[in-house]
């Protein structure tokens, strides 16, 4: 019923009116297209131009991908995965993968949130690798890891496992990984030599395994240093404060590659002569650790700054000492706040490990370079560089994007991003 606009008083007797469907141009496919692509003339032109650009890119990419020569990657898949690690001893990295998968599963079940997201990503990856015919043994390892991940998840979700135990397991998993990969412990300088398999020289470690290891070890070792630096910088002892500021700004002011070269050439100089020369891997890890610590310190400092003064005061008023105050009150809160930032830093470090290829370590990019140089592919017209680098980029992309995706999802959900 139309409103009688001319009468001085009017009552809508039809009230309440039943809702009507919006016009077809506002809903469904048409409506979506209109509001998202063709809302006005400028937008329509933009859409068409973008479409043309997209068509050009996509057709070229597809054409290239079909015509590309992927054999070098398939043939060298083992080297891409673990470098020159002896084939007969591949059960050692396999054990590491199984161990990490199980830990991931249990932690995902127990802690949920971000670990669950990452664990899910790991599961998808393992499933894909178990299904692709990369080799029966490798597929079995992948399938086994997947099984452990899933079983671990249910155990973690059902059984109350103390957080402390799980944290300790994670911390111990790092030296365990190194010992497993080495095949034992060997420090001739200190007279320690214990092996359960032929020792594998760290120069043989490589591929994705080394990339992962460098990033994980780098962030793990830099964590305590970074926290101390952040506390020092936030503290009120000028000498310590300026030392920390100096260190952080110095490291953040120079490129990682200068530190890597410095580690390679100068680290041995700094050690007593009777210690011998540390391996390439140790030198690289040292450089990465000192680099990462400065950035971690800045992230942690952000978390410390976000803690209200009242928390310090309440802890003091209760009589907690400086150490207890940090341990129970300040650090737990500050570190929880900076988890997303630390994940972001880990992603950055994961990408940055590619630089160790420039100082002679055989990580993913270096493997790629070596594969391109293999004499078998010399006859391939145009070379195989594009294919190899696209593959390497793809591997990095899966991990970096996967991690940042999980992190961002959770950030939104938990409101971490809000300040």
């Amino acid at each position, binding site marked *: 019923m139309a409103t009688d606009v001319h009468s001085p008083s009017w009552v809508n007797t039809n009230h309440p009116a039943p809702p009507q469907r919006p016009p077809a141009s506002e809903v469904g496919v048409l409506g979506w297209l209109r*509001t*998202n*692509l063709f*809302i006005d003339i*400028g*937008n329509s032109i*933009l*859409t068409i131009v*973008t*479409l043309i*650009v*997209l068509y050009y890119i996509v057709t070229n990419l597809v054409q290239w991908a079909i015509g590309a020569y992927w054999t070098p990657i398939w043939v060298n898949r083992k080297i891409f995965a673990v470098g020159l690690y002896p084939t007969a001893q591949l059960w050692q990295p396999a054990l590491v993968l199984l161990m990490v998968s199980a830990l991931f599963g249990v932690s995902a079940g127990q802690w949920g949130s971000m670990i669950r997201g990452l664990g899910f990503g790991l599961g998808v990856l393992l499933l894909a690798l178990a299904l692709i015919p990369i080799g029966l043994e490798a597929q079995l390892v992948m399938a086994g890891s997947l099984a452990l991940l899933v079983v671990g998840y249910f155990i973690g979700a059902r059984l109350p496992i103390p957080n402390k135990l799980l944290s300790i397991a994670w911390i111990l998993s790092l030296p365990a990984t190194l010992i497993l990969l080495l095949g034992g412990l060997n420090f001739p300088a200190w007279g320690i030599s214990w092996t359960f398999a032929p020792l594998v020289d760290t120069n043989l470690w490589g591929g994705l395994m080394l990339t992962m290891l460098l990033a994980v070890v780098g962030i793990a070792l830099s964590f305590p240093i970074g926290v101390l630096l952040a506390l020092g910088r936030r503290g*009120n*002892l*000028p*000498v*310590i404060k300026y*030392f920390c500021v100096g260190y952080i*700004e*110095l490291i*953040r*002011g*120079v*490129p990682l*590659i*200068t530190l890597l*070269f*410095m580690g390679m*050439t*100068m680290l*041995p*100089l*700094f*050690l*007593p*002569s009777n210690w011998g020369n540390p391996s390439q891997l140790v030198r690289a890890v040292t450089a990465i650790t000192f680099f990462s610590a400065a950035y971690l310190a800045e992230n942690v400092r952000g978390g410390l700054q976000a803690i209200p003064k009242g928390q310090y005061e309440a802890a003091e008023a209760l009589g907690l000492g400086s150490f207890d105050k940090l341990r129970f009150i300040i650090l737990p809160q500050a570190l929880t706040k900076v988890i997303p930032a630390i994940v972001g830093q880990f*992603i950055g470090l994961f*990408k*940055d490990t*590619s*630089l160790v*290829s*420039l100082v002679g370590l055989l990580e993913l*990019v270096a493997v*790629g*370079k070596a594969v*391109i140089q293999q004499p078998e592919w010399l006859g391939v017209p*145009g*070379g195989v*560089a*594009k294919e190899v*680098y*696209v593959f*390497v*980029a793809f591997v*990095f*992309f899966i991990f*970096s*994007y996967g991690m*940042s995706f999980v992190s961002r999802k959770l950030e939104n959900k938990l409101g971490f991003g809000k300040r």
Partner: protein
Amino acid sequence: MTSSTLAHTRPPFYRDTRTIAILLQVLFLIVVLVSGWFLYNNMVTRMAAGNTAAGGALSWSFLSQTAGFGISEGPTFRPEESYSRAYLIGVINTLRVGIVGVILATILGLFAGIARVSNNWLLNKLASIYIEIFRSTPLLVQLLFWYVGVIAALPTVQDAADLAGIGYLTNRGMYLTWIYPSETGRALTWWLLGGVLVGLLVSWLRRRQLERTGVPGSGALAGAAAFVVVVGVGYAVAMFTTAMPATTNYELRRGDRGVLFEDLNGNNAFDLNVDRGLAHVPITLFDADGQVIATGATDGDGAFRFVDLPAAATRIEWRTPAPLAISEPQRQGFNFAGGISLTPEFTALLLALVAYTGAFIAEIVRAGINAVNKGQWEASRALGLSTGDTLRMVVLPQALRVIIPPLTSQYLNLVKNSSLAIAVGYPDLFNISRTIVNQTGAEVQGILLVMATYLSFSLITSLFMNWYNKRVALVER
């Protein structure tokens, strides 16, 4: 026991809050010094034991020694020049790729960032795919991909791809038409500099005048006009007053190549470190019969070279050039001459840095725009401003305050990341420092030099940004 006596007992120093702090710091200092001494001592011992190459002692005298190596690009460098000059070339090369990279990455990032907040779904998604791909893969892989995968696969010089008349694209690099100041335009640089100063002064005066009269607007237009006037006057002055030097002379080598120079010592021969080459001067070549066999121009060093000519030239003539010369790339045998050439190394590094940093800048721009209150959009819509005007005049100026700090750190990252040049052989400061270190064994000095250089970049940038931030903050009030 009474309070008054207790209150005055001095606690032992290790329990006194005033001394604990000092004690802790002294302890810390001792630990730092002792470990520093330990490391230094080890280093000196090892160096003395001959674990390093010769010249390991911490001396800086190597800087003035002859370098003995060539540098493939950047300002002219001859192997007989010193290490310190070689390093300086490296610094200039870093700044070259850094400054161009920063400008291009900002443009790319700004567009991609705006596309990321666009309500056009397709454009939005396209930008987001670009950002995610380039942010989630290592810069080194991207660099190698551009260098080995893309540029090396470009056509050879013979089949160079023609870039619509502005230049050529080949696997030996990019060749572009460029404008250079010629021999008579040398003073233009000073006029340009003067123009900038006068422009800044005028725009400042104009702004003050506008503020006093209460008229809205900025002094930018007046400043730009002043700049144009100064440069125009400079051009006219250069055009009508500058002549070729009276002692202009030339030297022909093999008939088809030679050099045009100002004969400063008057011996009729070109002496490398004494006489001055005359840049971008048009010349004509004559043979013994007085027939014109070729025309062309000298390059930036006064040298000229013709290919595929019978080596018959005996005489050249030159004309006074216009202050600015347009130099087009021309095929010469297996290479191009003239114009500006971008080596594959420079191009790959620039491409990689721009594409990578652009993706990060895009995210910063997006975050900055999103940080501006939705109400600002609505308010300017209500005032009848178009989307573009809203973005340009209302949103971006406000977003700028959020954008600037992370943007600065991206700029610094770009400059630091340019050290990856070593992966493709572009002679930036780090790459050259490695060459120097390999030749001299001055490991420690080399590292210190590089670190000090990068740190001074950071320091200068942050000083500038502090100054800028203060300005922006003042505007807010």
